[in-house]
């Protein structure tokens, strides 16, 4: 297997996955959050019977539909990309990874597809209550689809509930419930959805702030802001709680990722959290360069975050790469040696079987079992290859955390001035709301960069490096499709933004109603 490695192809395939996943994620958070906001707006309409809530619902629903279409378009590529660019991955873990994808189709996509049509076209075709039910189902369906795909992603970050089958040279599911209820899957789902609720809340606030600045539809804008701020504020609580949980889980199952996003090279006890900093670009694992050119550190906090214990030891990149016997950390160098033994034993087992030599096969297999947990490491060329891009992970993490901490303040401010009924006069706040929209998207994308770049070089943590997961195709083919999707998605994104801005400019339809201010 290893002799066929083609690094260039792998890197194009990684770039393509990053490209398509990031494009897809431009649209998903709004779908996840706005669908619930639509359900809230429409619930207010059904409860109060006031026509204006219906018009408000319809306005946001129009924007939802524009965003939803391109979300679907960018999503289909991702499912099939596992096959086209990562076919060895698809074979080696399809037994486990395929199930949540199929479940997503059965449990979530059909709910979305069926009820979206009712929600959008069914105002006069089904009863009021049935329509409200459909709107809620769109919200539930969208978020269920996030659940299944994040279960699948969580499994890649923390592979549980499975065994390696040496006869088929693949991983097989052993416990479905362990896969679904893996702590990483749960923290991924709760963190990704709650942060998406923030994005959607800020989107609604930003657009409404623009209306207030333009002195148009002020009543609708104020009402939308109140609902969105409450939703965003509640979501923020979850974001912080689940983010803390995610860091704690990272420390257990992906310590390298934790070390990378904190820029921690040399582990220590009672280590501080870098609140902000500038990395030294010359720093490499194993050298004696300073890590930071500038840093602001909060003492003891990283140990607390990682282990819930302020004086505990947190391993750094160097400990994880080169080992730290004092703290019982096995280095990647040792794991690579073990991994190569595992590969050799597996090949011995296969050969013994071909030669019909059951005794030799049994011995090889018994020995293989002792080394199989290091199998993936056997494909790494050097210990340093196990280190993800530190700078990208570090900055993304800090951008995400800083923005994620600011958003609850934005929600609070909007709620405060809405309560005092002086929103229209707070020009600075309205501009802040408007600028928070792109920042929300930045934070959301940064979160995925931390999650995915931070786990490189692994497709499946510790088991399957990207170099082995790939398809047997030329770099040129992947390069071609990379630019194809880049061009296509960029054109569609521009179209989407233009349509969206135009629809916002046209504004809600209050015809036949007493004009709001």
């Amino acid at each position, binding site marked *: 297997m290893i002799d066929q490695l083609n690094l260039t192809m792998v890197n194009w395939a990684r770039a393509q996955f990053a490209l398509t996943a990031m494009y897809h994620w431009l649209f998903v958070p709004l779908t996840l959050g706005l669908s619930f906001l639509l359900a809230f707006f429409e619930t207010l309409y059904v409860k109060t019977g006031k026509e204006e809530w219906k018009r408000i619902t319809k306005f946001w629903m129009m924007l939802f539909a524009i965003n939803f279409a391109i979300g679907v378009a960018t999503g289909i590529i991702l499912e099939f990309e596992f096959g086209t660019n990562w076919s060895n991955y698809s074979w080696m873990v399809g037994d486990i990874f395929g199930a949540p994808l199929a479940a997503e*189709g059965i449990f979530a996509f*059909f709910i979305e597809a069926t009820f979206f049509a009712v929600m959008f076209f069914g105002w006069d075709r089904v009863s009021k209550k049935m329509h409200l039910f459909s709107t809620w189902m769109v919200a539930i369906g969208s978020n269920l689809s996030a659940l299944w795909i994040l279960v699948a992603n969580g499994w890649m970050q923390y592979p549980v509930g499975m065994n390696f089958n040496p006869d088929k040279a693949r991983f097989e599911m052993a416990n479905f419930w362990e896969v679904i209820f893996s702590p990483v899957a749960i923290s991924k789902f709760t963190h990704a959805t709650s942060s998406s609720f923030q994005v959607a809340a800020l989107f609604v606030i930003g657009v409404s702030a623009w209306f207030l600045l333009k002195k148009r539809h002020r009543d609708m804008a104020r009402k939308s802001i109140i609902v969105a701020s409450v939703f965003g504020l509640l979501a923020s609580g979850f974001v912080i709680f689940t983010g803390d949980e995610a860091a704690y889980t990272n420390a257990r199952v992906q310590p390298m990722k934790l070390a990378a996003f904190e820029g921690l090279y040399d582990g220590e006890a009672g280590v501080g959290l870098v609140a902000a900093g500038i990395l030294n670009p010359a720093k490499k694992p194993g050298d004696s360069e300073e890590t930071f050119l500038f840093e602001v550190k909060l003492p003891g906090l990283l140990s607390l975050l990682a282990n819930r214990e302020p004086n505990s030891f947190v391993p750094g990149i160097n400990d994880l790469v080169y080992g730290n016997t004092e703290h019982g950390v096995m280095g990647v160098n040792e794991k690579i040696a073990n991994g190569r033994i595992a590969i050799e034993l597996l090949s011995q087992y296969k050969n013994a079987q071909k030669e019909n030599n059951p005794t030799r096969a049994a011995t090889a297999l018994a020995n293989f079992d002792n080394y199989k947990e290091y199998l993936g490491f056997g494909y790494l060329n050097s210990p340093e290859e196990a280190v993800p891009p530190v700078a990208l992970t570090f900055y993304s993490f800090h951008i995400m955390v800083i923005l994620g901490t600011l958003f609850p303040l934005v929600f609070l401010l909007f709620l405060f001035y809405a309560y005092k009924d002086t929103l229209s006069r707070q020009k600075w706040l309205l501009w802040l709301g408007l600028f928070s929209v792109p920042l929300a998207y930045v934070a959301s994308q940064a979160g995925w960069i931390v999650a995915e770049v931070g786990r490189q070089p692994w497709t499946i943590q510790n088991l399957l490096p990207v170099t082995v997961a790939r398809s*047997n195709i030329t770099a040129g083919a992947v390069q071609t499709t990379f630019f194809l999707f880049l061009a296509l998605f960029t054109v569609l994104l521009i179209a989407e933004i233009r349509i969206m801005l135009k629809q916002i400019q046209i504004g809600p339809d209050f015809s036949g109603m007493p004009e709001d201010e």
Partner: protein
Amino acid sequence: MFGKLDLMQLQQLWWIIVSIVGSLFLFLTFVQGGQTLLSSAPKTDLEKSMIINSIGRKWELTFTTLVLFGGALFAAFPLFYATSFGGAYWVWIAILFTFVVQAVSFEYRKKPNNLLGARTYELFLFLNGSVGILLIGTAVGTFFTGSQFQLDDYNLVMWQHPLRGLEAAFNPFNVSLGLFLVFLARSLGAMYLINNIDFRLDIMKDLEKRLRKAAFTNLLAGLPFLVFFLAKLVLMDGFAIDPASGEVVMEPGKYLHNLLAMPVAMGLLALGLVLVGGGVFSCRFSKSRAAIWFGGLGTVLVGLPIFFTAGFNNTPFYPSAFDLNSSLSIYNASSSRYTLTAMSYIALAVPFVLGYIAYFWHLMDREKLSTGEVSDFNTKETY
């Protein structure tokens, strides 16, 4: 319940499930058929809007069924997923491309400021309905004609043809299946529109006439391709698994033997063809609006035996013409017993899903799509 089934029974159960999803997809391609009718059936903007708004309320069901078809194959037969997508690269990329552009086209076509203009989005819809369906047909055709690949000891696929899957589109058998599916989709599309649109107004009468005619002429146009496909299918040498040795060999008349060995499949095929034909006839020569149900059910019944012939009776469903023993069967390409069992429980939800889809379809379509709904610019919920 499923825990009592052995691995082979589960593999067969999952081939049946995959066949059902695949056949339902063929029925739902009435959306794609409607998309290609856009360039010929409507004569006015209103008529065009009626067609787009009618199929536009169903396109996501078709799309989702395709995604589920892929997901089910991934979960149940991961080696097929890996081999076919990673191997026949270009044909899948081309198919996906047409579905990406389809997904935005309904929503963006009429919106102001949409960058590309309505004509481009209509072209996207046409490409999806023509090239997309044609290529899906040729890809399914390779279930019988085989592909050029080899698997190594670790099941890594090495594709042996530089066109990476697109070569299938140069095989008359595969292309015949593809073209038949394109015409069938158009015929189904016309029948669906007849069912879904309110033609009572005088300005709509002419469209109704054209659509009823289109249902008939398109099936007629597809017929030679179907006949060629079926004739070739029963006459050709097929890929067979020798049950004793497990080796794959070429067997003359293999697919005919499969049909003869599975009288149920043969019955389904015959009944399906009769239903499709009957549906189309009733659409053309009567005032009936129910033709789509006969045509749709018929399509599903025609789809099932084609999948069954490809996968059952010791037949590798994804054969390699380059290296016979690299061929994939439901037995060597499947997931483990544990996963297939777990997935079978998940699949218990499918009848429930079909149930609510049918119920809401009924609720939404009790009243036919009227011109008022489409031309009323005060309500923006139109495509």
